């Protein structure tokens, strides 16, 4: 578990998985339909978002409904750089992420004085505040938002028009960054402190853990990574406006994908997104005509079923199955 500098079987599995993901665009299936490419990119984007949220909500146990704010700040960072300042998006992406982290610390410092559910409720209000603020803030485009003009496609401007392969590798890099950071955290002191604060703040403090600092660090990191995801989202859609990014809907996606996949687990956010996003995109494509929100109804039902059956989400179900197989094997070995 704590094998520093050595590569164990879990690492190999992870690296193998990344290699498979990286090879997807060369398969004929990828070029078969651009909608499938879109769905795939969304899966990686949303699993990165959920993993960023998971640092704070899953590992540290502080449920935030405010992550769409940080996501939005990141999206606006990229959007402002491109649309307002006529620059390449990269400095805006970095600035947006830093600003998101600073805003996150500033708003969560008072909120962390509230415990458990009250913290979650306070973060609800923040989404509404930021949504309204950006709606009337004309310097950042107000309700109309920011629309990207046509620029030279490629990595420099981080936009592509003809093919989605660039976006695919872009989101894969983001995915590797976010998941890589969480993987590092899991094995280091910070990860142990995160979980200790989740399991018992006073106990953690009795062991010398400054719980406020741990929570604020988790919040800052989580917001920083959520903002990077937001920047990708703006680049991918060539535009950003307040309801697109800073909404409770968007906030709920961070939370629900993680819960569905498994709170505080490494693969949970990926599994949650891999199940939910195709479901969402295909129901929207096929049932969209019936009226908005069918995808959310199905999503809601899924959450209810999973949480009632196995509160640890898909990871919990997988664990149970794997343990069952292991037990039956060792049982046979005994005979």
């Amino acid at each position, binding site marked *: 578990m*704590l094998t*520093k500098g050595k590569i164990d079987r879990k690492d190999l599995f992870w690296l193998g998985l990344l290699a498979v993901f990286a090879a997807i665009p060369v398969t004929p299936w990828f070029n078969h339909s651009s909608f499938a490419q879109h769905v795939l990119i969304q899966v990686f984007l949303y699993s990165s978002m959920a993993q960023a949220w998971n640092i704070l909500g899953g590992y540290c146990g502080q449920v935030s409904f405010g992550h769409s704010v940080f996501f939005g700040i990141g999206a606006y960072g990229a959007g402002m750089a491109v649309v307002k300042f006529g620059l390449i998006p990269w400095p805006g992406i970095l600035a947006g992420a830093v600003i998101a982290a600073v805003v996150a610390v500033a708003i969560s410092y008072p909120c962390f004085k509230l415990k458990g559910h009250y913290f979650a409720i306070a973060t609800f209000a923040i989404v509404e505040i930021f949504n309204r603020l950006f709606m009337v803030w004309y310097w950042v485009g107000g309700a109309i938002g920011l629309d990207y003009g046509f620029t030279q496609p490629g990595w420099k401007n981080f936009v592509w028009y003809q093919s989605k392969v660039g976006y695919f590798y872009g989101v894969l890099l983001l995915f590797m960054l976010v998941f890589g950071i969480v993987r590092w955290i899991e*094995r*280091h*002191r910070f990860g*142990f*402190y995160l*979980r*200790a604060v*989740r*399991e*018992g703040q*006073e*106990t*953690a*403090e*009795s*062991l*010398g*853990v*400054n*719980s406020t600092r741990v929570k604020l660090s988790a919040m800052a990191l989580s917001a920083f990574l959520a903002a990077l995801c937001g920047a990708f989202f703006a680049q991918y859609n060539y535009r950003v406006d307040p309801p697109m990014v800073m909404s409770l809907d968007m906030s709920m996606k961070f939370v629900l994908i993680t819960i569905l996949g498994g709170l*505080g687990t490494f693969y949970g956010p990926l599994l949650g997104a891999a199940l939910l996003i195709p479901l969402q995109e295909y129901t929207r494509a096929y049932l969209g005509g019936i009226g908005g929100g069918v995808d959310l109804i199905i999503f809601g039902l899924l959450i209810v079923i999973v949480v009632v059956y196995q509160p640890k989400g898909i990871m919990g179900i997988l664990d149970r199955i794997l343990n069952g197989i292991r037990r039956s094997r060792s049982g046979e070995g005994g005979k």
Partner: protein
Amino acid sequence: MALLEVRNLTMKFGSLVACNDVSFDVEKGSVVGLIGPNGAGKTTLFNCVSGFYKPTSGKLIFDGRDVTNLPAYEVARLGAVRTFQVVRPLKEMTVMDNVLVGAFLRGADADTAHKVAEECLSLCRLEDKSHNLAGGLPIGYKKRLEMARALATGPNLLMLDEAMAGLTSTEIKEALEIIKGLRERGITLLVVEHIMEAIMSVADMVVVLDGGVKIAEGTPREIVEDEKVITAYLGAKFTERLKRSGEVTRND
């Protein structure tokens, strides 16, 4: 100079005075027992010393530093670490991970922390449970986990809040062995305990609280003969039994 100096410590909750002008010293390398009937203010005193409560008045000096108003995590970093009377395992973490949280206090290096944790687990006889989830342990193990976790922080002063309450007599014997082992390693102990036979056999000094006030302080032998302590807490019959059983003769 004593490792811990408690000076005129008073803790009030509204009009209730839980601790009233309590003073005593804990010498380096000693085992000090803190006893008294229910509601005497033992746990309150513990919470003050460990930084969980801010005392209404009075002073706490640990290792030459005023720690009266320091938060709990600072007190722990200075080396005064406590366990909880009502056990608080980090439930969804394994026993090993629980102890690692403590072990990480003295450095971020995972290999070192791992070594320290393993040592503390074996010292508290938990090595075969190290991969179990802490929330599922039986109470005796949970009590020992509290100890192992606190121990892993490398404390100078270990404060055990009723580490033996609710244990079977075999488990108590095991716990006593562990405590004796800690003392041999040079760790100073402040122990709240109700089980008199247990505390009398390990303590160098005993402080007796009743109704928030210190009513006696002395060696175990002096304490069992103290009139005030007998009336307030031990009772005459019990004192006889203790003396006959010879548990208090260790300091002779």
